[in-house]
Each structure stands twice: as structure tokens, then as C-alpha cells.
């Protein structure tokens, strides 16, 4: 069973491990409300997270398996082609959550 009340040092070590192993989403999902608050209010966490990123960059970026550039170029070209086809700017950040929450509110509203 995962630890649900981690101290800041445990959270930092888990973040470092997640970054090293490429599993940041799993780390993010593992956070509880209390841990989220703890991270937000901890200056030490943010300072350490910065160093963890450097360590990750220095220690593991060189070992990462990068794709063949030729293949990657064709992916980029395909992306450009699709944007040309659409003939419009790239997808902008849509604020879909607002619409969602409105619907949610509407759902919970009782008819007068």
C-alpha cells in the first residue's frame, strides 16, 4: 500500500526517482491533497527539485535512447504538413475546464 502521508524529504526523493525513471505522471497521481499542500508551501522542495533536474540532466540524459534523427525529421515534416493542411495556427490552449465545471454545476442544481 502506498504511503499517503509523506514528509517533504520523502516527496522529494520520490520525485527524483520518478524523474530518473521517467514516471512523473505516476508520481503526480500518487500525491494526496495534504502532500500537494506540503509541496506548495515548501521552499526546500522547490530548491531541491531544481537540483534534481540538473542531476537528471547530467546523469541520465546522455544515457537516454534518442531516436534516429532522419526518422524524427519525417515526423516533424508530417506535423508541418498537417498544420499546412489545416491552414490555421497550432492548437491553442483551450480552457475546457471552465465549461466542464459549469456543466457540473448545472447538473447539481435542483429545479426551482
Amino acid at each position, binding site marked *: 500500500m502506498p504511503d499517503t502521508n509523506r514528509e517533504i524529504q520523502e516527496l522529494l526523493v520520490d520525485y527524483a526517482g520518478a524523474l530518473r525513471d521517467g*514516471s512523473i505522471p505516476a508520481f503526480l497521481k500518487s500525491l494526496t491533497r495534504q502532500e500537494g*499542500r506540503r*509541496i506548495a508551501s515548501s521552499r526546500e522542495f522547490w530548491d531541491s527539485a531544481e537540483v534534481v533536474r540538473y542531476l537528471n*540532466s*547530467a546523469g541520465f540524459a546522455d544515457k537516454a535512447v534518442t531516436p534516429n534523427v532522419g526518422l524524427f525529421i519525417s515526423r516533424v*515534416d508530417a506535423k*508541418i504538413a498537417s498544420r499546412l493542411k489545416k491552414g490555421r495556427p*497550432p492548437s491553442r490552449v483551450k480552457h475546457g475546464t471552465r465549461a466542464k465545471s459549469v456543466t457540473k454545476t448545472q447538473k447539481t442544481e435542483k429545479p426551482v
Partner: protein
Amino acid sequence: MNRRLRKALEGLMDQDIERRRRAMEPFVRATFELFIRYLYRYLGNETECEDVLEDVYADIWESPERLRNVTNEKMLLKTVYLYYMRKRLREVYRRINRYLYLSQNDLKNLIAPELGILEMMSGVELHDALHKTLGRLKARERRAIELWMDGMSNRAVANELRTTIGAVKMLKFRTILKLKKMLSDYCCED
């Protein structure tokens, strides 16, 4: 900046979109390694790095104006990070954000932080700085970090150092904070 990269950047400034599209190939060839290593710092995952970078290049093709005054590699990386990468990085985990107990701002800061002095160090500079600062740590602290960087789990590090997992976590946390201070001092000295 090397000649190949300078030529590639010149090609990107063409007004004609088809010519600019052709200019993307030399640009990608010249910058791919640099960008993907930089992205790896934030994501730690090759597949996600590739996906983000694909969008970053397409964004550069679409509006390369920000790169017009770039004169060196460091400036290129900084500009690309600030105007193209960061936006895409922030979108990576947006889809799961509604299920998280981390505020939107904290998530942004964790995945795509503001640039610090240390953040813009080149790979060589960073290696150099880390090598020097790691050398100044106590033997036990250095060992804990090195074992972690070798890919060991907390349990394995605890076994190696003959201590508990909790003590290893605390040791790593304290050591990382110490490293942060040392790296900041190192930058100030420079």
C-alpha cells in the same frame, strides 16, 4: 555558434513557408541532440521528449521570429525554452491535472519552471559544476548521490550504506539542499 546552425537559422527566417519547411531539416539536424537532452531534464522520458519536441519544431516553423536575433547556442536554447518549449511542456500533463491535488501553478512550476542562472548552463558547464560540488561533499553524502545516479533504489542504497530507507531519504534530501547552495555559490563565483 557553428556555421551549420547559423545557416539553418537563416533558412528559417524565409518568408515563404515551403522554403522554411525545407529549412527545417538542417535546423533539426543541428539542434536535435541539444534540445532533446535539455527536455530530458524536465521529463525524464524519451517518448514524451520526442512528442514535445515535434510540436516545438512545428511551432518554430510556424513562427520563427523569436529566433531572429539569436547569436549563440546558449541564447538559442534560452529563447527556444522560453518561447516554444515551456508552453508545450506545460501542456504535457495538463490532461491529468484535473485528477491531481497539485494546483495548476505548482504543476507548471514543477514541469516547466522559470529560468534560473543554473538552468541555462550548457551540458559541459553543468557537468563541470556538478563534478566540483560533488567533490566537496562528505564521502557518505557523495556515495548516496552516486549510487542513486547509478540507478539504485532507496532500499539498495540503504543496504549499501548499512542504514535504513528513511535515513537514506533524509540524507539525500539534505545533500541535495547542500548541493543547491554549493551550485548557487559556484555560479556567483563565476
